[in-house]
């Protein structure tokens, strides 16, 4: 057995070009002859009827070659399909009304971006401003301004999902705990903004679009339909480098359609690079949510059931894959706990805010902020330790693979061991003693816990949970399911190995990881494996679920690479058996070549076989396909369509996260100081621990941003208040906490390598663990965190109000 590369912190092959200024990001794309530049005119109103356009002045300006307005969009494109039954007409730009500030209303195309911006200011749009609504609960009140007249209300979708017998669980409970939570609207704001370059070739009828789109490639056929193009006449090319995405660049596709339309109408290649203000105004973010939670438990701390009532705010239009904000975690709604009775009432509401979509930890940051907050409230109600309450409810080790009441299939895990490891690393008992000492001295010291099931590789079938079972039962309804990825391995005549992937990486080091996987499979060194990872829908394998999102690469992408390598090995063994005139069963592939299973004998290296196979095809056995190139497409059989009882295995592999945090809150300034933060992850087999931990550090800081600093805040009229990085506060190196990371490995039985995903990782637990730690710190004042972000001003007000209340109570 040769050296093993999986499990080693190999340095990245991606680094050299990125460190030397030779990255190939969308804005660095080599100039396309005749390229022109777009500037987008955006609505200054949160809600307004568009009465007309006057583009004559803009068209007269220097360098301007065309202006596209909502009229062109209405005439030449179709609205995008949406994931709900409500008749929401979502075009790539406003046609009848503008429904949020920053919504595109026109596009100016000019010789350069400066001239395009000049002319954009000269485009006149006549508006009739309408009343706006931004709060998801107020938007459902009678008399609220209605965004979409065809829908008749602002409710895009409403589902009531019932699992088990929640009614009875609540009736039989010793205690019921209730709380209302608010989760903020924030986005991961990748430092590289959106970018699209579109070229229309009228004679071939092909639209080529280069963009930093990250998938899922379901958006490709949706966009083709919008533009009226056959799918094989729409070419998506993704540059080798994407400057971060974290879910946000899923939602670039309306701009692909809009800039594609501009290229088709002007007959010129058109480039548009989003600026930061546009990004904050109108790219994508997670939803803000109002949640009402109820938890039923026995006196001993056993949770019997829960009720979730959600109001998810998707902004001016529901844009696919929303309402994933509600349903992405369907299979893991219950988290790591074994209760069986659950009711979920999910309302997806449209208001005059910008549109939403996947954002790192998609829907899970919300879910665990609420659930883990409820576990602490239960502990407090029962006078139990929060660790003990959680321990009593964990799914036990011997229950895996575990089918959740909502249809999830947790493939492997040892939640107790990972939790114990976190408590031990944090020295939980010592932290509690320290807290007692601090409290005795009048300090606000708190300890928070958070546990989460970390779902990876979304099953495309989950989105149909948004539709009624009656709708899904119609004969014309086509069920949906699946999660696949592909890899091709080629061996050249001198025996060198190239792997071709199309996973749209955004900084996760896919080329390095694939080289490790294939090196292990073939018994060669990673530096001898060249990995090309570039998406081009005309030349690469892709399917509906392709892309890098929902933490999928570590699970499905690596599986495809391993599968292709195994198919190549089988072919090499068969070929060598033919050359050696022995049965293939007597041979095996190891250490970079084909060897006899037992005893000594001749062997063939990959190089030997490659030379013969390429130079002398006559030497191939009868019926063997020439060429040493194999493709593997890996798919999960457990990715099934949602059933009639709304059960769905919404992801394919499920990891686990256990976190402990200790904080101190300054009673005068309300500044939160993180004293200790431990995070333990179980993502199955770890292929490259350096890259895995990089994901955890990054994910944790995203969660911290949402918990403490970041919010796309709007006033009541729907104006964005945080439109620059001076107001939208992204954590810097000074805010980054010290993080202690540990791993527990429960290999997945579903993947060839036992790996699972962990790209989203602590982004989904940090909001919960910080909120719980701060609530614990403020417990002596009677303050509980129910709303994020915990900006010092908000926290200070809570502290002041609690003190005033205490004073009022003690005054006769």
């Amino acid at each position, binding site marked *: 057995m040769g050296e093993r590369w999986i499990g080693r912190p190999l*340095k*990245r092959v*991606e*680094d*050299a070009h*990125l*460190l*030397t*200024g*030779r*990255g190939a*990001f969308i*804005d*660095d794309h080599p100039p396309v002859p005749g390229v022109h530049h777009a500037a987008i005119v955006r609505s200054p109103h949160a809600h307004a009827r568009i009465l007309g356009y006057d583009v004559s002045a803009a068209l007269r300006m*220097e*360098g301007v070659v065309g202006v596209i307005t909502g009229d062109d969009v209405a005439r030449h494109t179709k609205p995008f399909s949406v994931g709900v039954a409500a008749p929401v007409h979502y075009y790539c730009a406003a046609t009848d009304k503008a429904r949020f500030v920053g919504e595109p209303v026109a596009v100016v195309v000019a010789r350069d971006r*400066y*001239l395009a911006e000049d002319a954009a200011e000269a485009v006149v749009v006549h508006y009739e401003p309408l009343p706006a609504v931004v709060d998801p609960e107020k938007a459902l009140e009678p008399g609220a301004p209605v965004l979409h007249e065809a829908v008749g209300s602002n409710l895009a979708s409403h589902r009531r999902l019932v699992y088990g017998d929640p009614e009875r669980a609540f009736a039989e409970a010793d205690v019921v705990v209730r709380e209302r939570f608010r989760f903020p609207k924030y986005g*991961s*704001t*990748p*430092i*590289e*903004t959106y970018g699209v370059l579109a070229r229309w070739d009228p004679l071939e009828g092909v639209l080529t679009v280069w963009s930093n789109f990250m998938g899922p490639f379901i958006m490709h056929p949706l966009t083709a339909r919008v533009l009226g193009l056959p799918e094989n006449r729409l070419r998506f090319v993704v540059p080798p*480098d*994407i*400057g*971060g995405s*974290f879910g946000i660049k899923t939602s670039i596709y309306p701009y692909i359609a809009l800039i594609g339309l501009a290229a088709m109408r002007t007959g010129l290649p058109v480039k548009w*690079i989003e*600026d*930061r*203000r546009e990004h904050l105004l109108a790219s994508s973010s997670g939803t803000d949510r109002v949640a009402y939670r109820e938890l039923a438990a026995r006196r001993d701390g056993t949770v019997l059931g829960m009720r979730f009532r959600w109001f998810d705010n998707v902004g001016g239009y529901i844009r696919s894959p929303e309402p994933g904000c509600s349903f992405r975690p369907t299979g893991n709604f219950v988290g790591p706990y074994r209760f069986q009775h659950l009711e979920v009432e999910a309302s997806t509401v449209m208001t005059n805010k910008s549109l939403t979509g996947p954002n790192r930890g998609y829907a899970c940051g919300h879910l665990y902020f609420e659930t883990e907050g409820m576990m602490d409230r239960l502990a407090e109600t029962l006078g139990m330790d929060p660790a003990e309450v959680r321990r009593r409810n964990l799914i036990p080790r011997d229950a895996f693979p575990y089918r959740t009441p909502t249809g999830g299939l947790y493939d492997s895990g040892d939640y107790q061991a990972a939790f114990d490891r976190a408590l031990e690393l944090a020295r939980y008992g010592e932290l509690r003693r320290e807290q007692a000492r601090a409290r005795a001295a009048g300090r606000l010291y708190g300890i928070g816990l958070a546990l989460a099931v970390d779902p990876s590789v979304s099953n495309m079938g989950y989105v149909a949970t948004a539709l009624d079972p009656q709708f899904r039962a119609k004969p014309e309804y086509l069920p949906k399911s699946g999660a696949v990825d592909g890899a091709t391995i080629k061996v050249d005549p001198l025996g060198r190995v190239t792997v071709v992937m199309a996973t749209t990486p*955004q*900084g*996760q*080091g896919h080329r390095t990881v694939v080289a490790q996987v294939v090196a292990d499979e073939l018994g060669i060194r990673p530096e001898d494996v060249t990995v090309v990872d570039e998406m081009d829908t005309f030349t690469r394998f892709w399917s509906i679920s392709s892309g890098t999102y929902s933490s999928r690469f570590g699970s499905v992408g690596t599986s495809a690479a391993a599968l292709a390598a195994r198919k190549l090995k089988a072919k090499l063994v068969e070929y060598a058996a033919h050359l050696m005139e022995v049965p293939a069963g007597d041979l095996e592939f190891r250490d970079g070549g084909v060897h006899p299973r037992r005893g000594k004998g001749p062997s063939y290296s990959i190089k030997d076989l490659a030379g013969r196979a390429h130079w002398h095809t006559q030497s191939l056995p009868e019926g063997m396909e020439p060429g040493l190139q194999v493709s593997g497409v890996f798919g999960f059989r457990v990715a099934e369509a949602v059933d009639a009882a709304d059960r769905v295995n919404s992801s394919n592999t499920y990891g686990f996260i256990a976190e402990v945090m200790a904080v101190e809150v300054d009673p005068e300034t309300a500044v939160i100081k993180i004293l200790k933060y431990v995070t333990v992850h179980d993502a199955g087999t770890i292929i490259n621990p*350096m*890259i895995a*931990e*990089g994901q*955890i*550090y*990054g*994910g*944790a*800081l*995203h969660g911290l941003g949402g918990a403490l600093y970041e919010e796309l805040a709007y006033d009541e009229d729907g104006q964005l208040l945080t439109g*620059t*990085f*001076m107001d939208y506060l*992204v954590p*810097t*190196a*000074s*805010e*980054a906490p010290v*993080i202690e990371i540990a791993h527990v490995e429960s290999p997945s039985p579903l993947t060839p390598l036992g790996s699972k995903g962990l790209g989203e990782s602590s982004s989904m637990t940090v909001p919960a663990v910080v909120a719980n730690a701060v609530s614990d710190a403020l417990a002596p004042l009677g303050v509980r965190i129910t709303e994020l972000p915990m900006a010092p001003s908000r926290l200070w007000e809570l502290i002041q109000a609690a003190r005033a209340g205490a004073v009022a109570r003690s005054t006769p």
Partner: protein
Amino acid sequence: MSVPVTVRLTVNGVPREGRCEPRKLLVDFLREDLGLTGTHVGCEHGICGACTILLDGQAARSCLMLAVQADGAEITTVEGLARDGGLHPLQEAFHEHHGLQCGFCTPGMLMTALDLLRVKPDADEAEIRAGMSAVLCRCTGYHGIIEAVKAAARKLARSATEGRT
């Protein structure tokens, strides 16, 4: 459009010249007119720091100044860091310590770190964190970046000592 002006400057030791509108940003001039796409644009309002370059030896935001203002200046961009076919110690340290993921903020990080370690070669961790907080990164959580700058500081200090003896 106003009359184009000629801008002459030295970039990475090489005299360069271009003609552009007086309103053209320095970063756009570097990227579009000189073809130096290593310097990135992240916010165009001076906060994210992705466009940081050295202007006459000091870190500066190339999105906050015009190309004409840099006429006659000496500029170093990320393309000028590696010399003689080898990586700069800072680049090596970023590679060793996983100080980059997507690599988009990296040019700004490297140029900022270069300036920081020039001004304060013995910076401690808190000073490094404060100094590097001039550039935003959304991938790494800053852990690898801070480790890389600490390691580069040690390495540069060692080579400076060796240079003196």
